[in-house]
């Protein structure tokens, strides 16, 4: 008993125990093979065999240098990305409750400590029905979406977590894509938004899209064109309440210095240039700790006459611009109200 306690106190079994375990495992395998014959190895043409062997020899080489201890330590550090933190059931858009639970520590830290998010107007959030939250798009990575989802979850009595729509290029970016999917992100397209709303999810959308994400720093908090009004006709068709959301602070997280059209032409992705990225490499991806304010505006509900105009392009566009103005006003108010970019 005390031995086990001592072992677990050290954070793992002792080398002797490990050796014992290994030898008993080897015995078991020997017995199994004696009884059933050796497990047949697949000997088909495998161009990867060389690769595997290379990987194995590299691993054993690193073992000798004691690097593996460091590696496993690092693995434990970033445990949120490990396989055993995944649930075996995901919802139909790939959101993983267990993974979200594990990531909550990090999200809470970002919300409370790093960005010290101040939420106002949470009383405007409707108590039920289909809800479409429309926000200003800020920054390249969808931190704002995560924080809005966090704010709604925290301040709404039902504690539901809205799903957010992510721009195309981030929703299919390697590494970002699986991460976002598990945290509740969905690629932004009308079909997805409709299905999410129909199945009772709240949806956060950023109609500015990429235009908003990569606008230069001097245009911060000036809303760009609001898409083609697809979100309005969707809300009209499904009778979804639109809640305008203004996020202040997120646009200072990664200030865009250079117009990203040149990298887009060269690399195919609108790689933004910020004071720290790509100069500082991956470290440049760490967001700046600005102080954030999230403000929910008055919800916009539709009457029967409006709902019939879902296909009326002029009406849709006018409504789109009204919503855009509402958010711009909220933004201006919030920008005036804050005392400094980083000070709270």
């Amino acid at each position: 008993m005390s031995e086990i306690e001592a072992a677990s106190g050290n954070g793992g079994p002792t080398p002797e125990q490990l050796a014992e375990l290994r030898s008993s495992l080897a015995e078991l395998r020997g017995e199994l093979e004696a009884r059933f014959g050796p497990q047949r190895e697949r000997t088909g043409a495998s161009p990867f065999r060389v690769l595997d062997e290379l990987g194995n020899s590299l691993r054993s080489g690193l073992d000798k240098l004691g690097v593996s201890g460091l590696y496993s330590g690092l693995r434990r550090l970033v445990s949120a990305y490990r396989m055993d933190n995944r649930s075996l059931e995901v919802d139909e858009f790939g959101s993983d409750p267990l993974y979200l639970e594990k990531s909550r520590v990090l999200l809470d830290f970002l919300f409370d400590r790093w960005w010290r998010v101040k939420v106002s107007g949470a009383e405007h959030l409707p108590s039920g029905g289909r809800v479409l939250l429309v926000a200003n798009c800020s920054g390249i990575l969808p931190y704002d979406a995560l924080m809005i989802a966090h704010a709604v979850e925290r301040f709404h009595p039902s504690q539901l977590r809205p799903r957010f729509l992510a721009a195309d290029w981030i929703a299919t970016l390697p590494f970002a894509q699986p991460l976002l999917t598990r945290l509740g992100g969905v690629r932004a397209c009308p079909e997805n938004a409709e299905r999410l709303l129909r199945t009772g999810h709240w949806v956060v959308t950023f109609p500015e899209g990429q235009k908003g994400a990569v606008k230069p720093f001097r245009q911060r908090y000036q809303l760009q064109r609001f898409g083609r009004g697809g979100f309005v006709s969707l809300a009209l068709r499904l009778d979804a309440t639109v809640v305008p959301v203004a996020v202040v602070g997120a646009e200072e997280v990664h200030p865009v210095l250079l117009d990203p059209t040149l990298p887009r032409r060269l690399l195919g992705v609108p790689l933004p240039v910020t004071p720290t990225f790509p100069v500082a490499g991956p470290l440049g991806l760490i967001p700046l700790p600005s102080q954030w304010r999230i403000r929910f505006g008055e919800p916009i509900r539709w009457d029967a006459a409006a709902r019939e105009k879902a296909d009326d392009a002029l009406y849709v566009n006018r409504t789109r611009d009204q919503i855009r103005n509402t958010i711009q006003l909220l933004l201006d108010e919030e920008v005036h109200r804050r005392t400094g970019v980083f000070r709270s």
Partner: protein
Amino acid sequence: MALRLLEGPSPPRIVGLDLSVPKALEGRLRFHRVDLTGPTADSVLAELLEKERCDALLHAAFFTDPHPDREYAHELEVIGSLNVMNASAAAGVSKLVVASTAQVYGPHPDNPNFLSERHALRAHPDAHAIRDRAEMEQLLRTFATRHPSISVVSLRPCWVMGPSYTSSVTRHFESARVTTLLGYDPLMQFLHEEDLLDAVGLALTREVAGPFNLAGDGLLPLSTLIQLAGKRTRPLPHPLLYRLGYLATVARTGDPPAAFYDYLRFGWVVDTERAKQELGFRPGYTTREAWMSCVVERRLKSYR
């Protein structure tokens, strides 16, 4: 499929058409040898169909895997299907069921999370087999509008898994280390082989027409599936894999690696709502169960 119908309570009269008699069916059904790629295949087939007075025709003469001989594959899958269509129109068949695949939607970064039957068929530009199948679907659509008296059904199942079903896909997942693409983890769905046969039976007997997506319920990320099976992944960066694996894959399947691996890169999940509503399709196995049935069977096999 024929075996299952024969074992049913009231076996219908079944006529088999193939290049050779399947062993399990020998002596249990009437059989005619037909080569769909022959020069007069359509008239031969029409004559046979008329002589046997067939009501419903199941057209499943497709390669399961991409065939390295691209010309022959095209000849069979597109021209052969055209022959089948023409023959069934001439012989007055009332139902034509075609085994297509959900892969005709193609894996694309801008796919919506759920593809419905109304979605455009954007076959992968590198996958010749899927391109042929999509072309066949176009021909089928034209055929259906031209012959309203024939109810044409095309079944679009996603990847099929099961204890006995083998294809290049199941073979890919058989190895202990599954090659995946670094940084990509799409949501996958599978269909159990039994459910596919159920759906074919429904399509043959019910009064339906049009395309139907088929898939098991539930979705899982690829990495979770592989972990469930107790396998390990071999994540490779796709630019590397697509370049290094080029010659080997082209020699084996006639396509560059992207034609297969893009399906492990972008989502191509289908919406089965229409099959459930109109066809009465009720999958007995979820994605996870279909996957596990395939994995468990193969694991046991290695000890036999």
